[in-house]
């Protein structure tokens, strides 16, 4: 659950979501990521660290640059957990459909019996 907590916390911030959105279009350096935001490079680096610790992004070494890109692990962990939740809801309501059908039939039977008497 530790990873999921980190993922949720990382996603709770709008700047970090915007960074992820930018990285979804492709790899980017810290400078490139800092550009659209009115933030200092250290501030952006701090956000990148949170995203990295959550397993949402990874870094690559290219000379003096450290370009970041989206990683699969964090997203997959979150996706898996939430996919299960959605599946569970859908399965619950499909079962409820059947339960309701049986309840309705029982009501009809009761009425029929009542009338016969």
């Amino acid at each position, binding site marked *: *659950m530790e990873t999921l907590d980190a*993922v*949720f*916390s990382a*996603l*709770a911030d*709008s700047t970090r*979501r*915007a960074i*992820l*959105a930018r990285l*979804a*279009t492709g790899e980017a350096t810290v400078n490139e990521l800092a550009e659209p935001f009115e933030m200092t490079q250290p501030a952006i680096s701090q956000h990148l660290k949170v995203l990295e610790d959550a397993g949402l992004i990874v870094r690559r070494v290219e000379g003096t640059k450290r370009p970041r890109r*989206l990683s699969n692990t964090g*997203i997959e962990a*979150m*996706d898996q957990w*939430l*996919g*299960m*939740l*959605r*599946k*569970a*809801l*859908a*399965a*619950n*309501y499909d*079962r*409820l*459909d*059947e*339960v*309701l*059908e049986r*309840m*309705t039939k029982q009501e009809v039977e009761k009425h029929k019996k009542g009338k016969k008497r």
Partner: protein
Amino acid sequence: MSKMTLKTEGDTHVIVTRRFAAPPEAVYRAHTDPKIIQKWLLGPEGWTMPVCINEARPGGKFRYEWTNGKGGGFHITGEYVELKPYSRIVHIERMHLPDPTPDNHIETRFEADGPGTLMTMRMTLPDGKMRAAMLATGMESGMGVSYDRLEELLTSLPA
């Protein structure tokens, strides 16, 4: 065709709607009678709810325990805030995994929809964490998140 919809409202709400082919009275009973709850509120295939304690009255508590029969399990505890037969339920719940998750405030409405019912469940989350994660996973469109889809979702998130 999926009968379930899921969308977000404002910063901290998730709304799930589902249509049922039974009147509101039946759907409401299915949400408050423990004997009926045990038949459907089971999550993924293979899970059962051996413990279902449910005091469906304002201030009443409930406790649902699930098991997969292979040693896996968890439980939810909660309290009813308001019950209006057969149209509205307001309750608070939390999952124990085993540490409790933050309280989830849930309002469930049942409205007549022709011969059936339109159920609307409004979950109030204490913060944006869960909601952001739900959006990011593309719950509305089903399983699997492509990076394109993720980008679209992330950019549509309110700041």
